[in-house]
């Protein structure tokens, strides 16, 4: 990516990004643009360079921000009516770190409201179109950020991934998507969805750029006590896989998976072999239960996290309410999208007395079995290879009447999330009709850079 220096002006980089954002208006990538602030920041960086002062590693680089990251520049809406007018009083740690290195946020991207969804159709502001076919979905929930990179509006964008929300839209739009190890990047200042699986990551055009961005936003943060000690380094070269062994997950290439997707994954396995990797098939029958586990555990956490939206301290408040109970109940009915309400109600169902043991506790025990299966696989393999999504981007409106069918699109992305593992979505091919198909590389905890190293090695082969 281009960094500002004496020849390349930050103002020109930012202007170009803003122009491209406006020219792509019909894709509905952005909820809001940050034009005045962005240009002001760019001018300051150019002035610093002019004076010969030190500037950051991402000086003048424009980026797009998923609209669930808090920043006082513009409103943070989470694509929900509830937060339509919410001006954040603080800055998310990831954003503050990027800005300290000179990166410039040019706009806030569309998402499924509260990041609940896999298509960006659950946005209060309407869907985002796929970069390769406007009649198809961008994927989600970080759909806007994926399309912003795919359309070359910005060289990178931030997203959040709770169960696939970076990886799946990255696949639908053919860009690199990084879902880091749980705890690698601070969650401070990002609208909470499910606290045990929320991760903050990025989209970029290649593995090297993605690594640069991640090396900046990752790290321990006193404002998020679940963050891990710093381990992400600038240099990808140091992260070579030791054994060069890859497990191809057989269970993810059969029934319910588009043959074109399976072919792209098998072709990638062949490329790995040609690059000196040993690729062996592995069976992980537990994976088929991951979706049920996920849609119990995550809604339970969603229900808890979204209790804070009560219409009292901030956000939407119903004008129809006469007493305190009505403020809560009407505000929440008006402010949430239907999918938000479904997840809150499912969450309260699995947590309620009488059902807790049968659903929530059962799922958390099954989650242990899933983690054990991964641990066992990593005794033999450096990384696991599987598809990101069962098929390429689907048509806008195709799944909106059937929430369970929509959940099925997450079947391959939720397993690593439940285990806190890093997982990369890497461009690898296209369907006959020209829709991008990525592959997914999953590794042990904190092996993020090794996965990106593998991807970088294969990028040009």
């Amino acid at each position, binding site marked *: 990516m281009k960094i500002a220096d004496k020849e390349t002006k930050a103002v020109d980089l930012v202007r170009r990004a803003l122009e491209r954002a406006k020219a792509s208006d019909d894709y509905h990538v952005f909820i809001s643009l940050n034009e005045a602030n962005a240009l002001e920041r760019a001018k300051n960086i150019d002035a610093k360079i002019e004076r010969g002062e030190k500037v950051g590693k991402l000086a003048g680089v424009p980026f797009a921000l998923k609209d669930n990251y808090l920043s006082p520049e513009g409103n943070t809406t989470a694509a929900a009516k509830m937060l339509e007018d919410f*001006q954040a009083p603080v800055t998310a740690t990831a954003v503050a770190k990027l800005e300290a290195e000179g990166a410039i946020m040019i706009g806030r991207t569309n998402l499924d409201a509260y990041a609940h969804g896999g298509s960006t159709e659950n946005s209060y502001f309407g869907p985002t179109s796929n970069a390769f076919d406007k009649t198809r979905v961008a994927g989600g929930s970080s759909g806007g950020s994926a399309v912003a990179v795919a359309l070359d509006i910005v060289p990178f964008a931030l997203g959040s991934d709770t169960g696939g929300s970076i990886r799946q839209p990255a696949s639908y739009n053919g860009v690199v998507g990084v879902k880091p190890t749980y705890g690698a990047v601070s969650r401070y200042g990002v609208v909470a969805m499910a606290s045990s699986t929320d991760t903050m990551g990025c989209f970029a055009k290649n593995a090297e750029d993605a690594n640069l961005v991640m090396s900046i936003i990752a790290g321990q943060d006193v404002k998020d006590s679940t963050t891990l000690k710093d381990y992400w380094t600038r240099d990808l070269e140091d992260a070579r896989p030791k054994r060069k062994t890859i497990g191809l997950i057989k269970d993810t290439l059969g029934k319910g998976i588009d043959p074109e997707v399976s072919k792209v994954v098998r072709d990638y396995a062949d490329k790995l072999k040609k690059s000196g990797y040993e690729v062996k098939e592995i069976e992980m029958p537990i994976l088929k239960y991951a979706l049920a586990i996920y849609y119990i555990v995550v809604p339970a956490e969603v229900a808890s996290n979204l209790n804070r939206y009560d219409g009292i*301290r901030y956000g939407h408040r119903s004008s129809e*309410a006469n007493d305190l109970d009505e403020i*809560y109940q009407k505000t*929440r*009915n008006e402010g949430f999208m239907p999918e938000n309400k479904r997840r809150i109600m499912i969450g309260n169902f699995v947590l309620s007395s009488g059902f807790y043991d049968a659903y929530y506790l*059962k799922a958390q*025990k*099954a989650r242990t079995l899933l983690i054990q299966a991964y641990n066992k696989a990593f005794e033999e393999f450096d990384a696991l290879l599987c598809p990101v999504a069962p098929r390429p981007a689907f048509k806008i409106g195709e799944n909106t009447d059937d929430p*369970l069918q929509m959940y099925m699109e997450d079947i391959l992305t939720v397993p690593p999330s439940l285990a806190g593992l890093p997982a990369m979505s890497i461009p690898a091919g296209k369907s006959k009709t020209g829709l991008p198909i990525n592959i997914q590389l999953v590794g042990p905890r904190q092996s993020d850079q090794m996965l990106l190293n593998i991807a970088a090695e294969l990028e040009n082969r």
Partner: protein
Amino acid sequence: MSISREDVLHLAELSDISLSEDQIEPLKKDLDNIVNYFSQLDELDTENVEPTYQCFDMQNVWREDVIQDFEANREDLLALTVESKDNQIKVPKVL
């Protein structure tokens, strides 16, 4: 397990969401489908398996008991509410 109309109303109450009549039936259908999907977990033997609530098994992350600056100031925070008075958020009578 199947979700009844009464279940939907009970969950709406637990969730502090007021539903209009036309929302109830579609929610009943959707929640019923989703909850039935969960039943496949019965196939798994989880006897003697410990639950995982948190992947990294972190416990008691301590910090020094000193005031930290979280940037936000009182005025900005109060400006986010619909109504405030004397540095307090105003709500309808509770009792």
